[in-house]
């Protein structure tokens, strides 16, 4: 087998020589997608993150009746959630 110039596995022809690298690429891609979506969700949905500081200075108030966490450990989310805080602004 002749030596390959540069990093092997970065071209189609060299992958064909070493097919064992393919699962590594699949897992790498999955990890990148997962990390990117987690960061994006945090930026857009997190009750402590607001890009609109003037218009929405208290972003947690959007979650008075909504669930942010995926899993409610020790808590039954199936009935829906609501805050018990009274609304004094009406």
């Amino acid at each position, binding site marked *: 087998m002749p030596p390959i110039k540069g990093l092997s596995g970065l071209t189609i022809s060299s992958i064909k020589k070493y097919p064992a690298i393919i699962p590594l690429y699949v897992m790498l891609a999955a990890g990148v997608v997962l990390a990117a979506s987690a960061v994006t969700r945090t930026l857009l949905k997190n009750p402590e993150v607001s890009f609109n500081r003037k218009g929405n200075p208290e972003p947690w108030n959007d979650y008075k009746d909504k669930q942010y966490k995926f899993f409610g450990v020790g808590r039954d989310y199936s009935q829906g959630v609501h805050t*018990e*805080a009274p609304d004094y602004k009406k």
Partner: protein
Amino acid sequence: MADTDNGDNSAACVESGEDEFRLETAPFDPRFPNMNQTKHCYVSFLDYQRCIKARGEDYAPCQYFQRVFRSLCPNSWVAKWEEQIEAGTFAGRI
């Protein structure tokens, strides 16, 4: 965590009867779902100050916020914030 079905609770630690005490902490609030409840504490303190400013100290629903922040906040924080309000240096927008 407190259940939602006993919604007629009146205070964090009150004498509700002749010699019966009821101890309870702040109920779950979906706005603050994390284990760290620091923000829940601060927002409740802020909401209490806003509530009594808007409705007066006698408005009963305001007591909810007071119960929550008395339960969640360290007493030293509350004392410090109240001092700052007195001095006019409190950072929050009441």
